[in-house]
């Protein structure tokens, strides 16, 4: 069973610049009406590029705990 990383978007700080939508190498995001939506969280490889490129400090990616996945 593949662990899914947790992606949170702070909608109070997001300015809808769409940088995360275009630069995600796995195209995890879709643009919603106002804010990006995490459409395919199972595709996320936790590279954290969206987190690094988000100018508004709005995205946080928490990768699945490595220690836990190793046990299984």
């Amino acid at each position, binding site marked *: 069973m593949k662990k899914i990383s947790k992606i949170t978007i702070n909608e*109070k*700080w997001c*300015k*809808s*610049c*769409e*940088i995360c939508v*275009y*630069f995600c190498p796995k195209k995890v995001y879709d643009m919603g009406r106002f804010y990006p939506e995490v459409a395919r969280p199972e595709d996320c490889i936790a590279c954290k*590029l969206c987190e*690094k*490129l*988000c*100018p*508004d*400090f709005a995205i946080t990616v928490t990768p699945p705990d490595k220690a836990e996945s190793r046990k299984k």
Partner: protein
Amino acid sequence: MDYLYYLREDKMPHIWCDGCGHGIILKSILRVIDKLGWEKDDIAMVSGIGCSSRTPGYVDFNTLHTTHGRAIAFATGLKIVKPNLHVIIVSGDGDATAIGGNHFIHAARRNIDLTVIIYNNYIYGMTGGQASPTTPVGKKASTAPYGNPDAPFDISRLAQAAGAAYVARSTVYHVGKTDRYIEQAFLKKGFSVVEVMTPCPTSYGRRNKEGNGVEMMMFQKKNSVGVERAQKMSEEELQGKIITGVFVDKEQNNYLQRYEEVIDKAKQINQ
């Protein structure tokens, strides 16, 4: 890492427009500080006036927001009084090379142990999109509605010629490179300059039909050339390209060391 630890959360969200790259550079700075394990109280961030110079308002270090172009002058005083402080200057292209142009070149000549991070977006964004010293020829600005006739400054080459100990240029798109250069600049004992190209979709992109922040970052991705590769290319091929990489990385006596020597000499003569 937790960015919020270094931020003044009550000041957020910041004033920078959607698609502006300034936040990405601030994140790079915070990541490097986190990696180096510097204490918040050991850092002083100094800035002048402009969009980029709003940065110290959002970070929880010792911060100083000074008059237009004089950030380096204030930082020099700070560094001499408290040599153990890590003094970081954030400045825009206009702030550093037009209004503060003399401070910039003379600080580089003196080689004071400061780190200057220049956010280069080709324009004065905050005051309404006037042409700055780095606006390329022919590009439109509010003070140049038919195209800018002036030749632009190359900030990295300017710093190199003025005698800085470390000079590098990166773009907002190349976050890994930016992190690496900022880290090297922080660790350098001497005047170090990191120029980061950042998109200004509101004042520059809109007037010059270069699109939003995403399209301007795609432009950076497609048009960046490394220093080594650029040496093999001709002038025509380099037109409109952004040369990235480390331009200078050298060891030389910095101002504080030389000043100590002067004090010692003066003491000996007066005894």
